[in-house]
């Protein structure tokens, strides 16, 4: 059993070790200080945080509806919400393109009425990242809502609290760890999003070239820079997962 587990672990460890030993540690800081790299890092941070905020804003009500209501068709809604998790990201990008590009009904309406173009823009990046990240948040929070004891809320309601007060003072604090864990997972996923971003938002320096796209582009021309950027992503993901810790990931 231990041997099999060790083999399984090596599948994860070996690629990371390979990345670490291939890195040019001497020039790492210079690689990361280059304009292209700082641009990509800044863009990635901004877009992923915005995408996480979007996922939380709409994911929390969605999770609440899925966990706490008896609306018909919940199973279908849940399947739809979880679809981006299993969909290949590029397919997600193509789907977004079909829905929001300037040739689509919605996209052309947005462009003609508001002069808003989602493709090739930061908004498009945020949309693509939220599309893939929201399922992680929803699934985490929904599980926590299911596990949370309804009686506390019933007692609060019985003591005279309005539904919004119940939600704010009783429900939210109870599921706060799950919200944090879901947000962290969603952020990590948004940070690493590639396929949907490059298909929907394109690869424009300073506007849509997030870290993963920068790595992809640099792979041909400047492998050292690509590896330096990869290490940044690796480090951030590792920190997120370590701070999440078992009890949050497991319970939620």
């Amino acid at each position, binding site marked *: 059993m231990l041997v099999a587990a060790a083999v399984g672990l090596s599948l994860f460890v070996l690629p990371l070790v390979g990345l670490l030993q291939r890195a040019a540690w001497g020039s790492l800081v210079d690689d990361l200080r280059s304009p292209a790299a700082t641009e990509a890092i800044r863009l990635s941070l901004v877009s992923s945080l915005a995408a996480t905020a979007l996922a939380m804003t709409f994911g929390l009500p969605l999770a609440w509806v899925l966990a706490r209501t008896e609306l018909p068709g919940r199973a279908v809604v849940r399947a739809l919400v979880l679809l981006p998790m299993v969909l290949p990201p590029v397919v997600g990008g193509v789907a977004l*393109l079909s829905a929001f*590009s*300037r*040739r689509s009904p919605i*996209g052309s309406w947005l462009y003609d009425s508001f002069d808003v*173009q989602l*493709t*090739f823009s930061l908004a498009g990046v945020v949309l693509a990242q939220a599309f893939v990240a929201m399922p992680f948040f929803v699934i985490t929070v929904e599980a926590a809502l299911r596990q949370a004891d309804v009686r506390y809320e019933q007692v609060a309601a019985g003591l005279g609290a309005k539904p919004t007060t119940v939600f704010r003072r009783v429900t939210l604090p109870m599921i706060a760890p799950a919200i944090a864990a879901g947000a962290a997972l969603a952020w990590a996923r948004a940070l690493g999003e590639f396929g949907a971003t490059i*298909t929907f938002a*394109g*690869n*424009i*320096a*300073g*506007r*849509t070239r997030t870290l993963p796209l920068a790595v*992809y*582009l640099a*792979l*041909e*021309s400047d492998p050292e820079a690509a590896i330096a950027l990869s290490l940044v992503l690796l480090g951030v993901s590792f920190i997120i997962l370590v701070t999440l810790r078992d009890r949050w990931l497991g319970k939620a």
Partner: protein
Amino acid sequence: MAAGLDLDLGDQSVDPHVGDQPGESVAGRSGGRRTATWYIGVLHQVGGQALAVDEALPTIAAPTEHFARVDQAPDRIDAHAEQVGRLANAEVRHGRAGYVNSWVPPSAVIYLAAARYCGLMPWFRKSILVAATAALVPLAGCGGNGADSPERTLTVSAAASLTESFTEIGEAFEAENPDTTITFTFDSSGTLSQQILDGAPVDVFASADQGNLDKVSEADLIDGSGEVFARNQLVIITQPGNPEGIETLEDLVDVGVVSLCAEEAPCGKFAAQALEVAGVTIDEGNVTRGQNAKATLTAVSEGDAVAGVVYVTDALAAGAAVDAVQIPEDQNVIAAYPIAMISKGNDADLAQSFIDFVLSSEGQAVLAEYGFGPPS
């Protein structure tokens, strides 16, 4: 009367329905019941015969696999469907088991069918059945049976702009040389050269510029410097109907998002050259970079890029999906495509004959059909 027995049950299951009527078990334990019935079910399917359970059980299950009974039920129940109503095959549905017609996992049946087909006689061990149920059963090949038809394979890495032309050339080559299979990888020449340097098993490399071929030959993977087999030029592509009215490279400056190849890809380098000669600088914040020529074109044909710069051949291949705007000769770049054989390939003769085919009049005709210029 209930029997009060002191049983050491260990980890074997117990018959919960203890009784003292004929046919009911008094007390007892049974192990491996499910396995026994699995075997029975499988035997039933493969043998093609309806075995009576009592005949099957003793051959597989050990005698201790029965519960202690007060009475044995009769061996066979001969009953016809009309007499028994819905109970068809009653003679087979007998005893504790009655599982003979039970569901057998399709993968187990497929596995056994395949085993018979391939002439193997598998041992009916639990592990094999478990593996068959769990694993995907490869029916093709029956374990390396390809000795009767010697297939020659060739792996060709070619620039993305050669997708359509080389696919057709490959088909023509395969038609003239039966038992040959050509596998193509189409991508940016930069990506392909990197893959070859990293050890990808490629036999022939057709690049869009000499630079990438030189990278590979510097690593001693190519003898010589290849041979030019086609030429290409750049063209501006726009949305169908050219709504922005683009006519020159200068018009690309403030028109919106322009799609260009990555700077290290040959088409990116050539586009940069052409823009420099024309004295045009497009703000990088308006440029979306595609990994190869095809991806760059897709940004215009499927996406919202207003215009792009790709090869003439790509624009032709895209047909009505994009409109093409000529670049004047003095600003345009002539791309010379070299082809070469990788020295570490597995079939040097086949690789050479493919290269000769590309350079022959037949191959050249196909290339010309797709818009390529002659090598010289």
